[in-house]
């Protein structure tokens, strides 16, 4: 009864204030819920992508001399392997390779394993490289040199690509960390019956079961990993040594779970400050109106309200605010996806936050009726008196030093669990808190001891009243200090998040460019440069030779470029060439036809000095002399760390046949790369390898990149901007409402609207500039530390932070709307007849 009466009154007459508090709670609830939803969906996507990426989940290989009788799970097919000594056509011979026997429906069951490039799949198939070596095409008859048996002949019916050759030819049961085995140079695929005719009983014959599991996996990659690897070990145990499992799916999920942990780290890093801010904001809102609250409580006490009654009323108010805030917050979060369990967690968090912010101010006992606005004259807050700001910042720097270079995500050998070094969080968290306190100190310094300076700064706005305005602000140091601090922290939050996300995007782009080499990359084509250039949307085409060569016994990728034009088409970055620029390195190639760029590792291994002679041996044994000219660390499309770069014209003349194929780097005229790629695909047919930057950006690197921070950053920034608006506009308006008496009195004393404006605009400017300048500085510092701590999510690590100009502009624009709006609202309120206002107060 009592409680309902009270609540009814609050809802009808103090609805706006409750709504504002509830909005703060809504923010505190919405962020973790939305991030949680995002995180869950990101993890689900990671699991799904891992499954998609794997052509064959398990390759179960029978051990020599044993045969597997244990039933396989899921869908499976038997695949047979055997080695041969060579293949030949009447004119050409190639070296040794492997022959596979596949059942007729293999391609239907495992569609990712083979890709038919030419002919049909009914008979013997050659891998693309093998076909190229033999100059074979469908219909060609090839002789197979079997090991220890007579030669046999097969007629080629088609040519295929084996995209997952590494996994297909893996050494099943190889110890973890062993060097991966390179796939064979020559591959012949036979129908199962034909394989058995040719290779049954061969000493090199091996049998594998290729298994596709049912993909009912837990959404979290870590759980899925545990389930899949567990099942694999279980199968091995049941096979009792007769077979081993090559767990391709487990390996993919193992990589994905690391990425999942990183995304969880991001969630914490980016989410926690937002929640803390919402708490601060709600607390500030709850604090305003303290005077009226105190007098109401004094009145209730005089009417005989017991402490239990106060508690009940306070709890009722708290619960109303919580319920409204939580519903609104979850509603917001539901825009990003189904909230589910994260909703419950966030609601619980919201309850804690509401109790911490609304309850204390609703409970503060009032013993006397105080009718006066609180004026601060007292000492600075305890946290500042004990120099907590400097202590926190120093601690943050020390911790940062200690934890830099630590692996954030730990993958212990031989354990299925991976863990996160949560200590790394401490440094940015402490820095953030310390900077917040430092901002507070600076604001208090400016409005307190720095009053003279403030008065001079206020002079352009306040004229002769500047001293009075400064004095008035100085006596409101408490609320103004808190307001500026919360606003600055909100700005810092937006900026650090935006900077982090922008840097992340920048690096993802760098990674994609590095992998793809250009906007669109075309391989395995016989088309000419001119034909490609004729496709709409193409602005430039640059041919790049690619082959292999031995440096000593080490087989490395060898690239040949056209020094005259490469800079205009390929996206070469200075960072690719340590100690040099892209132009400088290309210039060295241009200066000498047989110049060679090699990796740092090669330089060290062979003690090279500029000008030294380097002899490379091509795959067919030809030796070509080069001269060492410089170091290259990264190169477009280069997959490994060690590779060689030379002049294409020199390669063409030195080894016309065996120095590889031509890759075309295609630049677009601004048309989206994937559009141009589609056109090229139409023009060149299915056998050409065409990849574009858009697609590469989605699939390269980790699945974390693939998930794309876009969604996360939209949530973060929408939320951050809402916080900035609330922190600046709302706190200002509430602060002005508390000082209606001051403004009414000033009007009675003859102040014109312009002079009232001096009070209002000075404060608006103080909050706006303080938040902008201090917030930007703090945001920059936090962003730097965040990027440094989270280096692990960047590939490659960034040289410099990307500045989020777009967000800066939005933030500035928002400030230019919200701050004047707050001032105008206050000015309008100050227009009411002043004596009436004074009577009401």
């Amino acid at each position, binding site marked *: 009864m009592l409680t309902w009466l009270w609540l009814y009154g609050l809802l009808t007459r103090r609805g706006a204030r409750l709504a504002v508090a509830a909005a703060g709670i809504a923010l505190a609830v919405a962020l973790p819920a939305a991030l949680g939803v995002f995180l869950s969906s990101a993890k689900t996507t990671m699991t799904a992508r891992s499954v998609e990426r794997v052509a064959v989940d398990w390759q179960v290989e029978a051990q020599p001399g044993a045969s597997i009788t244990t039933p396989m799970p899921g869908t499976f097919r038997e695949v047979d392997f055997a080695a041969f000594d060579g293949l030949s056509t009447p004119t050409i011979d190639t070296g040794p390779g492997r022959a596979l026997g596949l059942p007729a429906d293999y391609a239907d069951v495992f569609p990712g394993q083979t890709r038919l490039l030419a002919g049909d799949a009914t008979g013997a198939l050659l891998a693309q490289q093998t076909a190229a070596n033999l100059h074979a095409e469908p219909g060609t008859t090839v002789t197979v040199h079997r090991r220890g048996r007579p030669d046999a002949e097969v007629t080629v019916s088609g040519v295929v690509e084996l995209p997952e050759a590494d996994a297909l030819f893996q050494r099943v049961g190889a110890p973890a960390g062993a060097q991966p085995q390179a796939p064979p140079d020559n591959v012949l695929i036979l129908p199962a019956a034909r394989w058995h005719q040719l290779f049954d009983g061969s000493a090199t014959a091996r049998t594998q079961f290729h298994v596709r599991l049912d993909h009912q996996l837990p959404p979290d990659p870590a759980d899925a990993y545990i389930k899949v690897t567990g099942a694999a070990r279980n199968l091995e145990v049941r096979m009792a040594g007769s077979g081993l499992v090559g767990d391709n799916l487990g390996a993919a999920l193992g990589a994905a779970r690391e990425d999942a942990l990183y995304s969880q780290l991001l969630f914490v890093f980016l989410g926690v400050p937002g929640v803390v801010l919402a708490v601060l904001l709600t607390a500030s809102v709850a604090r305003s109106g303290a005077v009226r609250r105190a007098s109401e409580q004094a009145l209730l006490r005089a009417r005989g309200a017991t402490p239990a009654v106060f508690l009940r009323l306070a709890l009722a108010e708290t619960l109303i605010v919580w319920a409204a805030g939580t519903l609104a917050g979850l509603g917001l979060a539901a825009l990003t996806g189904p909230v589910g369990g994260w909703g419950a967690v966030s609601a619980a968090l919201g309850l804690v936050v509401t109790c911490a912010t609304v309850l204390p101010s609703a409970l503060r006992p009032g013993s006397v009726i105080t009718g*006066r606005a609180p004026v601060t004259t007292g000492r600075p807050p305890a946290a500042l008196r004990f120099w907590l700001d400097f202590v926190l910042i120093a601690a943050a720097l020390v911790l940062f030093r200690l934890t830099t270079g630590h692996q954030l995500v730990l993958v212990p050998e031989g354990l299925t669990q991976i863990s996160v070094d949560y200590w790394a969080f401490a440094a940015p968290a402490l820095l953030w808190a310390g900077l917040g306190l430092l901002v507070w100190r600076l604001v208090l310094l400016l409005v307190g001891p720095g009053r003279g300076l403030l008065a001079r700064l206020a002079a352009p706005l306040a004229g002769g009243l500047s001293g009075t305005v400064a*004095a008035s602000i100085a*006596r409101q140091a408490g609320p103004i200090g808190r307001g500026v601090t919360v606003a600055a922290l909100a700005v810092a939050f937006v900026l650090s998040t935006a900077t982090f996300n922008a840097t992340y995007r920048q690096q993802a782009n760098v990674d994609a460019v590095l992998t793809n080499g250009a906007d669109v990359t075309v391989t395995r084509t016989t088309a000419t440069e001119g034909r490609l250039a004729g496709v709409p949307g193409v602005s430039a085409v640059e041919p790049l030779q690619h082959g292999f060569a031995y440096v000593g016994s080490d087989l490395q990728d060898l690239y040949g470029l056209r020094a005259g034009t490469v800079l205009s088409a390929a996206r070469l970055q200075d960072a690719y060439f340590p100690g040099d620029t892209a132009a400088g390195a290309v210039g060295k190639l241009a200066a000498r036809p047989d110049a060679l760029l090699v990796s740092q590792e090669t330089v060290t291994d062979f003690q090279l000095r500029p000008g030294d002679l380097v002899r490379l041996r091509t795959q067919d044994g030809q030796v070509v002399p080069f001269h060492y000219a410089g170091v290259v660390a990264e190169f477009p499309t280069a997959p490994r760390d060690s590779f060689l770069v030379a002049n294409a014209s020199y390669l063409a003349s030195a080894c016309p046949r065996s120095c590889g194929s031509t890759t075309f780097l295609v630049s677009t005229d601004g048309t989206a790369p994937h559009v141009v790629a589609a056109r090229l695909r139409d023009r060149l047919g299915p056998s050409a390898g065409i990849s574009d930057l858009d697609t590469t950006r989605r699939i390269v690197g980790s699945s974390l990149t693939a998930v794309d921070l876009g969604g996360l950053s939209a949530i973060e920034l929408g939320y951050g901007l809402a916080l900035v608006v609330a922190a600046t506009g709302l706190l200002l308006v509430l602060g002005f409402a508390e000082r209606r008496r001051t403004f009414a009195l000033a009007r009675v004393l003859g102040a014109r609207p312009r002079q009232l404006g001096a009070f209002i605009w000075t404060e608006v400017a103080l909050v706006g500039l303080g938040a902008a300048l201090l917030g930007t500085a703090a945001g920059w510092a936090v962003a730097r530390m965040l990027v440094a701590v989270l280096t692990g999510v960047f590939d490659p690590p960034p040289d410099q932070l990307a500045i989020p100009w777009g967000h800066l502009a939005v933030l500035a624009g928002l400030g230019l709307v919200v701050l004047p709006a707050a001032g105008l609202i206050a000015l309008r309120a100050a227009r009411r007849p002043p004596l009436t206002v004074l009577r009401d107060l």
Partner: protein
Amino acid sequence: MTVVACQDVARTYGRGHKAVVAVHGISCGLGRGDHVALTGPSGSGKTTLLHLLAGLDRPTTGTIAWPDLDDEPRGHVGVVFQGPSLLPPLDAAENVALPLLIAGQPAADARLRALAALDAVGVGDLAAKLPQELSGGQAQRVAVARVLAGSPQLIIADEPTAQLDAPLAVRVVELLVTVAEELHAALVIATHDARIAQLLPVHWRMRDGGLTC
């Protein structure tokens, strides 16, 4: 020598059937040196009339003129009212100096005059105190000093003694009268206390928005 003159003034709040007539049919005038007590029950329109006289509000119909003030009352009217009439964030001297600064005086001059005015009403030692540190009587004295410092030609006081003990109230009103005499200003004090009203020579009574002089 007319400071303010009202001609058939009325002020209505709101519109249509919700309109409330706060004052109506008021014609009156104040010359320099006039001291008037404005009495009447609460809700009779005293505050509205004071708003109009001070130029803080405009009449709905009728005219108000301030011939001696060049029809610009702003800055020439000193106001004291009930309850705390000082700006909470400013100390006593800053409060007293505020109307001078608003009128455009240089800060240093304003401060000197403020300190002199505080001395003149006997609270010079409170110059650096904040309003929350002052008692009710002290606060009203500072408010009177603020009026004095502004050298207004019209002084308006709305229930200046409502929260003061009787002896203190009398002293505050006497102080106002002294200041008004010193400035040769017109003085209007709205009060419901008959003993306070007795201290002034002229009585205006308000009833239901009308005025009898």
